């Protein structure tokens, strides 16, 4: 005790702060290099992919025909036509997937967090969601084929594709909703209860709006993911080179199917169409993400 006191009062000899030692400088340099390298390893392929897509795919999509015409009646080497049929299919199939998966997924998420917490049903549901998250897309395609087409007797259609995407999408929506609801502070729920607001109204008017921006972002990212899925489309949908506006009936193209079809076409036109479709897909997904950002900005928590 006494020594400590005297230590405090002893005048300082020499500088209080030493310079950084050589060892630490070397460690710092090594770590910095490693981090930079890891960054490069991650980013180079990404940029490369994007660059190839733009380089090969930009040309074809610049023509107005690309966005307004299909490939109906064109021969493999005809350097005309467009991808309207596939773009339409991709967007409509994605929208019907969203329309079905969002209400179901959000409601399950709300049940899991707000009502079921700790119950056996909730634990079972979480378990099933975990399993569903791991189901490969081709399996979900096979399942829809077996149920929707073989057993129930419906034909192949864009909607069948949506159904198999739905199986991939629902767990994503449930997960996102669950996570976003969990970070809504309990104090907000209690503040609402204290005003004499019933629980369901608290959830609809206070909790969900607070979690909204996160849920929207998650949904959009999930949608971007399933839009590029090819396996289910190969199994339950089928490519058509013509425009089919009816999502419920008959073959309906989408961009992955178009790419798959034209990849087998050895002509220059096939090359252009494949990369053009890739470019369109990337653009549409970017557009969806942009939309997600805007929506979540609009509904974001105000500070």
């Amino acid at each position: 005790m006494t020594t400590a006191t005297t230590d405090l009062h002893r005048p300082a000899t020499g500088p209080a702060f030493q310079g950084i030692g050589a060892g630490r400088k070397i460690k710092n340099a090594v770590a910095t290099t490693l981090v930079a390298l890891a960054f490069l390893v991650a980013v180079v392929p990404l940029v490369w992919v994007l660059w190839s897509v733009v380089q090969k795919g930009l040309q074809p999509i610049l023509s107005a025909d690309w966005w307004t015409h299909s490939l109906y009646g064109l021969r493999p080497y005809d350097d005309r036509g467009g991808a309207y049929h596939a773009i339409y299919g991709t967007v409509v199939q994605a929208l019907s997937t969203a329309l079905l998966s969002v209400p179901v997924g959000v409601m399950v998420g709300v049940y899991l967090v707000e009502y079921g917490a700790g119950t056996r049903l909730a634990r079972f549901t979480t378990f099933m969601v975990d399993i569903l998250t791991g189901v490969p897309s081709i399996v979900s395609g096979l399942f829809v084929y077996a149920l929707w087409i073989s057993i129930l007797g419906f034909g192949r259609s864009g909607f069948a594709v949506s159904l198999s995407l739905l199986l991939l999408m629902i767990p994503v929506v449930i997960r996102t909703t669950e996570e976003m609801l969990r970070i809504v502070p309990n104090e907000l729920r209690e503040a609402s209860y204290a005003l004499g607001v019933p629980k369901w109204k608290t959830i609809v008017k206070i909790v969900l709006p607070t979690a909204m921006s996160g849920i929207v972002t998650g949904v959009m990212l999930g949608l971007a993911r399933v839009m590029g899925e090819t396996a289910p489309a190969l199994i339950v949908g089928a490519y058509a080179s013509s425009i089919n506006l009816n999502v419920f009936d008959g073959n309906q193209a989408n961009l992955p199917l178009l790419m798959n079809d034209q990849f087998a076409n050895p002509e220059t036109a096939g090359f252009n169409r494949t990369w053009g479709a890739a470019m369109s897909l990337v653009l549409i997904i970017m557009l969806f993400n942009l939309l997600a950002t805007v929506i979540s900005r609009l509904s974001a928590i105000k500070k």
Partner: protein
Amino acid sequence: MAKRIDIKDVNIYYGKFHAVDSVTLSVPPRSVTAFIGPSGCGKSTVLRSLNRMHEVTPGARVEGQVLLDGEDIYAANVDPVEVRRTIGMVFQRPNPFPTMSIRDNVVAGLRLAGVKNRKRLDEVCERSLRGANLWEEVKDRLDKPGGGLSGGQQQRLCIARAIAVQPDVLLMDEPCSALDPISTLAIEDLITELKQDYTIVIVTHNMQQAARVSDQTAFFNLAGVGQPGRLVEVDDTEKIFSNPSQKATEDYISGRFG
């Protein structure tokens, strides 16, 4: 308006844990009652049992009676939502709704109860904000988010929100613990004004505050770790602070505790 509360032999549990043992206590209308006592002795728990907020916690339950003007709020046919509409609450940490503007925060209770009349909502908004001594500070930015106010302003916003639904009783759990002395004084003045119309119960760790604002003080204590908290004594604030009948109370308020 302002109703009387009679707490009769209330025992409160969190699952198997017996948190509060047999509290009996009356709160007269148009008065301020302060709950004081060491941390963990169950002040918040008792307070939250007065508007059935306690049962929001999973596994939590209350035994005994809480009478509001003679009517048991725990009776089988009573809707907890109705109880909370009658007995408002202000929390320790200000918790304005982050997605709403100042105006929407104040009238949230009415809006969610289905009131749509814009004029009526604006009137209530102004009256409540004036009531909470916040009107002058925010009247030019009612459309700005509530989260953008200072802590003390947010707390007064929460008080405005609580009184906008015109409850009969106002419960406050350490409403000033996160505030500076000036905001604290503003809220204390407000409490003194509000007691003309409301029955107020306030939890506080600040002895001076209890002495300044309350008419009646209840001292809670713990017999030991893991034991339930209990009410040691309740009396006029003046009496508690000058001449308490229990030794434990005297030790606590004079700082000779533990």
